[in-house]
């Protein structure tokens, strides 16, 4: 079970709830269709790896289980599960291979498009909420800290001076 605190979980649910309040009932019919699969786990894993890819210092997000922890925040029937479902279906609406099987450069372009999509539409909200949640989960893992001037939690050692 994911380790987000109660407060962060509430903030996530509030953000998700705000989207559904704003969006109302006007979602694209295709997003509700069973014909476009969500393939939640594979799609989300590929998505978070575009947000936080492997580099020379630290692993990709899926390696740290970021996608699994996000899925753990979405119990069946919840609004967050619905948003994940809509978002992953939208990602798979390529007319070709599903998102997870696209070349990385195409995946990148799709995500880039999402960053400037209208605020009250699925692509933009999905991007914003999953980005915020992903970085919180990712950087909550010390394996992601390589290259930062942070090697341990603040306690029990603290940071006594000097601070140069």
């Amino acid at each position, binding site marked *: 079970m994911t*380790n987000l*605190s109660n407060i962060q979980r509430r903030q996530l649910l509030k953000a998700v709830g705000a989207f559904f309040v704003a969006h109302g009932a006007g979602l694209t019919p295709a997003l509700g269709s069973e014909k476009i699969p969500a393939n939640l786990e594979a799609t989300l894993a590929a998505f978070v790896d575009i947000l936080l890819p492997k580099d020379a210092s630290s692993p990709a997000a899926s390696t740290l289980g970021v996608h699994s922890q996000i899925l753990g925040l979405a119990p069946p029937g919840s609004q967050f599960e619905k948003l994940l479902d809509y978002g992953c279906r939208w990602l798979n609406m390529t007319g070709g291979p599903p998102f997870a099987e696209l070349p990385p450069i195409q995946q990148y372009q799709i995500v880039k498009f999402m960053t400037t999509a209208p605020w009250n539409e699925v692509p933009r909200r999905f991007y914003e909420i999953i980005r*915020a949640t992903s970085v919180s989960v990712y950087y*909550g893992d010390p394996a992601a800290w390589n290259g930062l001037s942070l090697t341990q939690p603040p306690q*029990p050692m603290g940071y006594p001076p000097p601070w140069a």
Partner: protein
Amino acid sequence: MGVTPKAGQYDCVIIGAGAGGGATAWRLCQHGLRVLLLEAGPRFDPDADYKLAEPDWERHPFPVKPNSQGQFTFGNMGTLTEQHKDLRSWSLGTGPYSHGNVREVAGTGYSHVQGVGGSTLHFTGEAHRLHPDAMQMHSHFGVAADWPLTYAQLEPYYALSEQQVGVAGSNKADVRWRSVDYPLPAHPLSPPAQRLQAAGEKLGMYWQANARAALSEPYDDRPACNYCGNCNRGCPIGDKGSTDVTFIRKAEATDLLTIKTNCQVTKLIAGKNGKITSATYIENGVRQQIETPRLILAAGAVQTPRLLLASGIANSSGQVGRNFMETLYWSSTGLVEGLTNSHMGLPADAICWDHNAPDAIDGIIGGCRFTSSTQEVGYTGPIAYATRAVEGFGLNLKRNVRKSFGHALTVGAIGEVLPNEHSFVDLDPTRKDATGLPLARIHAQLGEMEIKRLHFMAKTARALLEQAGADPLVEEISTYDQFQATHVFGTCRMGNNAKTSVVDASGRAHDHDNLFIADASVFPSSGGGEAPSLTIHALAIRAADAVVGATLLPASEKPKA
């Protein structure tokens, strides 16, 4: 109901174990009284509840436990206009915080803790005395109301509170004159504070070490601070002077104090002679009733008026719930190349009081203060940078998190709020809690002076960051569009006139001579941004002395050298 009141067991009952209730309990125990302290929230265990030693510590703000958050609703919080769009909150990582023209409630809105220690458990721990002129706002400036006591009358209680809490500060003389030195030397300035001090000097602003309820050396069986930078997440080592490890710890050591947690008080009952005869509360789901020969109410500026309004007492003036004053807040954050380790050191360790006096800002009544706030606003770990200070995704995101970590510099500012007719606490007409008590409803709108003051705070903060070499700006947080109040005041104001105030200069209710209020609801004015906890402690101890008729004499100002 139907439970017989327990007669004669306690000399005094206190409601609320926060800054005011804890200090009152300690003083009353010192006077030899048997005290019952009823607290709606739980105890917190620093070892188990505060997560600063965990690998995922940054995902854990101050913990929420059952009953540690009060319930309330919100009324009219005001609207936003195009004219002041420059005052809206935003960050590079998330974009604008608000998307409409109605002021939003950020998070819980009223940021507080119910529990043994109250909101001092999650406070930063600034330990400020009020500017003496801020206590005479009506006489001098025609706004708010005057305090019915002077700085000199409160000064001995400030000194006593500082000794009990263990406040570290600079003894440099200023308008807040002192009868005794701080018990502890000031803390060393952290990397971001040093940068702001240097920038301030170039702009003619004087930055100095802030007075802090955090130990700069071991004191009173508590260890010195180790500068982890995360006071607001709860202090696991006990150097932060929250009320649980200071006043309450000492009161419990007397064996005269009984604390009952998770006990919400639901009604105060007045007798025919005007005295409050008893209080009812819920303990383990069962309604109890306790005699109240003396009663101290210290539930804070939202829950205290709620209980009084729901009980129908102490309000012949009509002022209970009125005059609500929120926290007027601004912060600007930028990234400074060459600044490193800005996550280290004591939060809010440096302060500029230059604009704190009520007449310090041209054309604006009511002052403000500026603080080194990098750690206080949460730039202590990579999640903050990745979500707020860095935009985009992919390799660039990771690269920029690495590049920016430790370089954030934040100027925070808090300013005076003048009471107005649109800001008050009343009872929600429809929403009730599980006990059947109506919820408090907060209405809060910023007045003209507050908007002007916010513009000044924003302009000054940006100028400081520019001087410090910050580029780019990455975040600005403003209570113009985001209502988030940690300091709340005014809803049971003190005064000499029973027609226009709820309590007298000792905190005694005009309507009930055995009822005292010992929290920030009694403040007639908010001050120019001073953190209220030390003033709450001082007023609470003074109220306890009044209960037994032993108020300390005013201090004399030392002759100037």
